[in-house]
């Protein structure tokens, strides 16, 4: 009897320790789709038409800014906060000081009839804007066990051993479009990854994890946008 139990326990332990602890990683392609970097569907005529478009911005120009709200599963995990908008406002103030832009105003969801580019350009045109800055984002978490998580098989450690880890990735992107002819002036993308180790039974909420990663991504996006604008000499 004791031999049977010992054999069972050893088989248990062997199978358990061979199972391993591993992260499953992130699907960046899916996140970029969610952040608004659309995969183009086009034919040769559309390419020809795109080449015909010319930059058209006056100096300085009026810019509308639209923050694309998260959709689907993303909408329950994060949203654009006043702090995010304030960071982009810092960028626009700097562009204003450099006399690149003369006026910047936000496009509110209540003033747009749709979230596609044409609807947003129409809303920007109603504001008499010359350019539209479109900002999008998407995030994902990857929760997995560390080697300390193997102790959780004893049950009690799940309440006090920090054997779980979560990686959070947030991708933020921005595109600057001409309101009149849909000329694409620039694109910028920034990503931020944070990680946190936690006690298995007390898992941090996605909303809190996304907030930190998003804040870092927006910081990086602001710097990236400034470089792009200065580089393109708009």
């Amino acid at each position: 009897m004791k031999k049977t139990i010992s054999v069972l326990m050893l088989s248990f332990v062997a199978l358990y320790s061979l199972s391993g602890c591993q992260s499953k990683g992130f699907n960046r392609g899916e996140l970029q789709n969610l952040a608004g970097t659309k995969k183009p569907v086009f034919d040769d005529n559309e390419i020809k038409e795109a080449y015909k478009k010319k930059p058209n911005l006056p100096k300085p120009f009026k810019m509308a800014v639209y923050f694309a709200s998260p959709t689907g599963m993303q909408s329950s995990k994060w949203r654009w906060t006043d702090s995010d908008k304030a960071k982009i406002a810092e960028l626009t103030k700097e562009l204003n000081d450099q006399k690149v832009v003369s006026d910047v105003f936000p496009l509110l969801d209540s003033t747009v009839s749709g979230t596609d580019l044409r609807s947003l350009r129409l809303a920007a045109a109603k504001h008499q804007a010359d350019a539209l800055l479109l900002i999008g984002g998407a995030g994902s978490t990857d929760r997995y066990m560390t080697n300390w998580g193997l102790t959780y098989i004893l049950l009690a450690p799940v309440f006090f051993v920090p054997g779980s880890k979560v990686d959070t990735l947030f991708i933020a992107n921005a595109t600057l479009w001409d309101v009149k002819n849909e000329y694409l002036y620039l694109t910028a993308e920034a990503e931020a990854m944070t990680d946190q180790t936690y006690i298995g039974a007390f898992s941090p909420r996605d909303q809190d994890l996304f907030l930190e990663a998003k804040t870092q991504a927006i910081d990086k996006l602001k710097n990236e946008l400034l470089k792009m604008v200065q580089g393109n000499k708009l």
Partner: protein
Amino acid sequence: MRWICPLLFFLVLPLQAWAWQGLFSLSVSAGGTPLDQVAPGPEYTIQAGDAWGLGVGVLIPVTDTSPTRYEAQISVGYHFSTAQQGDNEIAWRRIPLEGVYYYRNVEQKFRLGWGLIYSVGNDISAKGSNSSAKTDVDNALGWKLAADIVIPHPNTSDDMLSFGLHYNIINYNATSFSREASGNAIGIVLNMFWPESSQ
């Protein structure tokens, strides 16, 4: 000291309450001391671990990691085994309360568990010429080891079915028993899970 494990089991209940899944189980097990060797009465062929079983319970995720995670399964069941010759029948019945703590590997579709069984309402009922075998049996606390294959739902990540081997380690006693009866038994268990409560 032996009550610490059951207390820990109940501590996991509120942790991920929004993600509970209900379950229904069927089982068959065999093994243990032949009851007619310890209990009074005629000879009959029922071992202390023999049982056909039905059960209901809940599956509670304890950690939210992937692809490996921990989950707790708490259930109450009805186990019975009968021996019959004409009008002479003997039935061995009990109500096990089980709490099993599993290590689950979602990618490899298996789980390993250990836990507790608290068997209540235990009795040997008898009629006909076997009626002298009738006796109540004390409540008993024991252990369980489990190894299951888990089949997930094809459209969601929820568990749909699990099928595996379970080993019960438990002893039964009664004032009428000549000695303790080992209820150690190996069994096959099929669990069917309802969709997650948050959906």
